[in-house]
């Protein structure tokens, strides 16, 4: 049991019997993060046309027209997304890995992993299934297409809690960590991510204006903060990889 206690510290000595962990695997996983999010951006902005989101304040026929006009790119984009969505697991897993290297115990790493593993469904996959189902049969009743339009976009822009929990766990972990895995100010950027989730609450009520699902506050502030946070995260994940000793023992 004593080994289980001592391993809570990331600055653990290398067990003389174990071979050094090396870092090739951490680097492979790291490079999947920018690769996945680049693909994610191309899919959501250029192909599926979910970003920036189409307007909520349009008629049923206009919603049906949106699906007819973008059917092919939705199929290409979301088809690829469904195939590569495991990359989100990898992108979250590398953060969990570095949280586990901190001096804060495992609980926040597990909270981050759990909330984001759940968040993949409401946060990016449900909109893919709604849109793919909508364009699967273009001759469907426009009322049903409109239902899928609302369901997909509300789920995508309006999935708040999974991410709030993840950002909360990440910020607390960074603030309490004494191994300096990530800089403290990244925690405050992460707190702003929680603020943007709260700013997106009105998307469930507001059909137009700054608080609608395509609004300047509910959507654009959140997207800009997320983009900035993600860029910081990638830079500091790289730094954390660089600074990790090559002979660090595997995590417990």
């Amino acid at each position, binding site marked *: 049991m004593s080994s289980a206690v001592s391993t809570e510290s990331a600055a653990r000595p290398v067990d003389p019997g174990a071979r050094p962990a090396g870092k090739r695997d951490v680097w492979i996983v790291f490079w999947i993060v920018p690769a996945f999010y680049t693909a994610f951006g191309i899919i959501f902005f250029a192909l599926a046309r979910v970003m920036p989101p189409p307007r909520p304040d349009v008629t049923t026929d206009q919603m049906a027209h949106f699906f007819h006009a973008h059917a092919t790119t939705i199929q290409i984009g979301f088809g690829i997304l469904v195939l590569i969505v495991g990359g989100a697991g990898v992108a979250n897993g*590398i953060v969990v890995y570095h949280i586990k290297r901190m001096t804060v115990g495992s609980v926040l790493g597990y909270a981050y992993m759990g909330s984001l593993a759940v968040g993949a469904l409401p946060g990016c996959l449900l909109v893919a299934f709604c849109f793919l189902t909508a364009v699967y049969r273009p001759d469907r009743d426009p009322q049903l297409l409109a239902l899928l339009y609302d369901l997909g976009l509300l789920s995508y822009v309006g999935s708040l809690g999974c991410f709030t929990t993840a950002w909360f766990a990440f910020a607390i972990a960074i603030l309490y960590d004494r191994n300096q895995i990530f800089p403290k100010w990244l925690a405050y950027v992460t707190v702003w991510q929680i603020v943007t989730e709260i700013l997106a609450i009105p998307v469930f009520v507001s059909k137009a204006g700054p608080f609608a699902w395509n609004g300047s506050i509910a959507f654009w502030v959140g997207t800009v903060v997320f983009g900035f946070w993600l860029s910081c995260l990638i830079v500091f994940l790289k730094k954390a990889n660089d600074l990790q000793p090559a002979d660090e023992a595997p995590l417990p």
Partner: protein
Amino acid sequence: MQILAEAEDLPKTANIRTQLISLWSVPIFGAILLVAFAAFPGFFPPMSPDMPANQVAAFYRDNEAMIRFSMITFNLCGIMLLPMFMVIVVQMKRMATQSHAFAYCYLTAAVSGATLFALADIFYLTAAFRPDRNPELVMLLNDMAWIIFIAPVGAIVAMNLLLAAAIYFDNGPNPVFPRWVGHYALATAVAMAPAVGAAIFRTGPLAWDGGVSFWLRNGAFALFVAVMFFVLRGVLQRQAVDEGVAR
């Protein structure tokens, strides 16, 4: 596996035992899931995406009982395969020559994949709940059921790529898995990947009733689970012997 008497009450023995229990959920629940699969009236042959709405509604009306039996069983027992994937995570974390970043990524991907596996049956069951609904609505539920059942292979593809990478990097004197398991995991990922086409194509091998999307995908997954049962049994046997728990 024969547990040594003197190791009976040790925590490391319990660690082996709980993994064995998790592993043995595979033959039990795997058999139940195969029965549920065989019982679904729309799998032999798989329902065509070209069925018109009134035929889809008639299918749910005429086969209510078997659809419910099959999909409630999937609902109850489908996620009982997850403990086996958790045994894989635990074994990936035994690999001494790497950092275990792969194991955490595998775990995260496994949970995301399981949420989708748990979702599809609800759509079949909702369609069967009120088959007198407007046929257009039954068809919408049926479309979502099939697309969510067949197409989302992204999680298992990522898991198998991660498992393969972890096995290839586990190149110390005592690898946890035999090396061929890495090749096999890769091959399974390749076999399952084309099934994303089920969300796009309405005819041909990539449609949800097609040879690639339905039979190859489901066959590859079922075979992978069965093969991994035997692989993991061997892995646990070696772990037990290495740790002085069994001989």
